[in-house]
């Protein structure tokens, strides 16, 4: 039976609590408090209420029939996380952690963000629950995701540009950790993905599992059975683990994670630690596969999508790959962009560039499959935030 993490927060050799001493008591307290509330009926009821009435769950599953017909093979179904309040799956986790923060008496929350979706989700819940909110965002990402920066400000958050390192998501994480170590007693760090020190990978997964749990009920209602494969994009991997986890023990369902191939794995400009056979390393509190040089320095990654532009990946994905239970592939920038445009034109849905990686992989394999096969793709977020990027790549100034 699959049962991870173990009591010390490890997923096999991955995971753990690789943090500076000052923060160890904080992650220890977080673990204790999370385990206390995880099965608390009142906590669960409040979480479920918020997901239903504030987020708008359950999110529907939609049969992308036009697109499937054009591809001429397997049927593609979309789990519509883009229809959630704030436009992505990130809100599921942000609410869960904010409810925990309230119970722990924390009045200030901080977050890192790449594409800005987790930052917007955190700013949203902070406004909803009356908490002070500071979001760290790489200066490079602030440029490419400017609509989300303004959204966060409208919601009352302070957005701090991070100028160090590659000025993207990993540097935003570094800066958020520095804030946390300085303000550890007053502050709850709402971490955005299923990575970081224990208990974050487990806790974020648990909050995101609503995606897969709903799908497991919805698919039989729609087609009388479970899909042949579930597909999701993987940066840190929170939307993916949320969809995958409930399917792990159902081995009739193939699990496929899609990393950001950037300009191609061979180019070296990518954000695909699993697909590129990176070495195991330690960053941001956990041991995972990590894009690094031979001296153990983290290498700058590249992806068209800010949300996937990260050198690591959550520890549970590392384990699922090593166990052979999930397969990980990479989709390049141009393939993701093509899927982005196709979904706009054929289905009337503007997908996030992150999710477009998962869509592109479905479009790649569907034609080789028979028409009675079913692929369930997690449409993890909507693409409004990406229109500037896409316009620029198309040579258009908005």
């Amino acid at each position, binding site marked *: 039976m699959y049962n991870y993490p173990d009591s010390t927060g490890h997923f096999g050799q991955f995971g753990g609590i690789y*943090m*500076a001493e000052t923060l160890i008591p904080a992650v220890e307290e977080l673990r204790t408090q999370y385990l206390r509330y995880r099965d608390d009926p009142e906590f669960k009821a409040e979480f479920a209420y918020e997901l239903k009435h504030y987020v708008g769950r359950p999110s529907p599953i939609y049969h992308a029939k036009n697109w499937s017909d054009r591809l001429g093979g397997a049927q593609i179904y979309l789990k519509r996380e883009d229809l959630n309040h704030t436009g992505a799956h990130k809100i599921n986790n942000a609410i869960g952690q904010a409810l925990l923060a309230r119970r722990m008496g924390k009045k200030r929350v901080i977050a890192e963000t790449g594409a800005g979706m987790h930052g917007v989700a955190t700013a949203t819940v902070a406004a909803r629950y009356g908490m002070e909110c500071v979001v760290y965002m790489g200066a490079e990402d602030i440029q490419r995701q400017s609509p989300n920066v303004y959204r966060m400000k409208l919601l009352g958050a302070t957005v701090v540009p991070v100028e160090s390192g590659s000025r993207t998501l990993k540097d935003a994480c570094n800066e958020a950790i*520095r804030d946390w170590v300085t303000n550890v007693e007053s502050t709850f760090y709402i971490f955005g993905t299923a990575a970081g020190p224990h208990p974050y990978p487990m806790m974020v997964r648990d909050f995101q599992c609503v995606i897969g749990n709903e799908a497991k009920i919805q698919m039989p209602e729609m087609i009388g059975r479970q899909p042949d494969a579930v597909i999701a994009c993987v940066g840190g991997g929170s939307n993916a683990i949320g969809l995958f986890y409930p399917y792990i023990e159902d081995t009739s369902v193939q699990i496929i994670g899609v990393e950001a191939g950037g300009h191609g794995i061979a180019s070296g400009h990518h954000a695909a630690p699993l697909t590129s056979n990176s070495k195991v390393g330690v960053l*941001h509190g956990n041991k995972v596969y990590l894009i690094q040089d031979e*001296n153990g320095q983290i290498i700058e990654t590249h992806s068209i999508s800010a949300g996937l532009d990260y050198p690591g990946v959550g520890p549970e994905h590392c384990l699922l790959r090593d166990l052979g239970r999930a397969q990980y592939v990479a989709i390049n920038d141009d393939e993701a962009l093509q899927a982005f445009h196709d979904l706009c034109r054929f289905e009337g849905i503007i997908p996030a560039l992150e999710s477009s990686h998962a869509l592109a992989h479905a479009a790649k394999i569907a034609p080789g499959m028979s028409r009675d096969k079913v692929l369930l793709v997690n449409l993890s977020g909507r693409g409004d935030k990406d229109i500037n990027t896409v316009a620029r790549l198309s040579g258009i100034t908005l």
Partner: protein
Amino acid sequence: MSRIQTTFDKLQQHNRRALIPFFTAGDPSPAMTVPLLHAMVAAGADVIELGVPFSDPMADGPTIQRASERSLKQGTSLRGVLDMVAEFRLQDNSTPIVLMGYGNPIEAMGWEVFARRCAEVGVDGVLTVDFPPEESHEAFEHLQRHGIDPIFLLAPTTLEARIEQVAKLARGYVYYVSLKGVTGSGNLDLSAIEQKLPQLRKHIKLPIGVGFGIRDAATARAVAKLCDGVVVGSRIVQQIEDSTEATVIDNVSALIKELRLAVDQA
């Protein structure tokens, strides 16, 4: 007896506190590291914490972040830092050297290779900021086998049960992080350190060094009154940043002498 123990024993006999400067290897340039080490010893350093630069120094403030970036830009690697220590040892076989940094460069080299190489070149202790005792089993085993002291951090937030746990694993000395924050922060609270130390002393029989936030002679003197060693990092790294290659040795020596005087007045 290890160099660290010998050094602290000798200091204790004379009722003196250790002055423990930190700087990042390879900053301002790889060629300056060994001369800086010797200059610090000549100016009064007892133990030197030599920073191994890392691309993502999460526990460090802007000053040491910039030093790491300068050093990495010039190609400094863990392998290179070990070679620097070997070169230093050609002329100094008594001053303890502690490598301080993050775990990933060591993971990439492999703990066994690293620990063996530390012993060969004359590294005395290793402090891995992001490897708490819970994740240090493998590191501990290899370091111990090669006689290298694992140096652990304790923090204002550390609870008593953990202090006990760290006391069992720690060798050489224990590094007490004097404030909640990153290196180079300004909010040092002397009375908080004073209150915490008896709790530490109850379990820790090793010398206790205190660092983070010690900005000048006055704070160094005040902190030295409370503990066995004073660690000064960002202030020295700032001095290096503010100097040219021509002036860096003199400027750093002057600062160390000033700190030495302050620590000895405690």
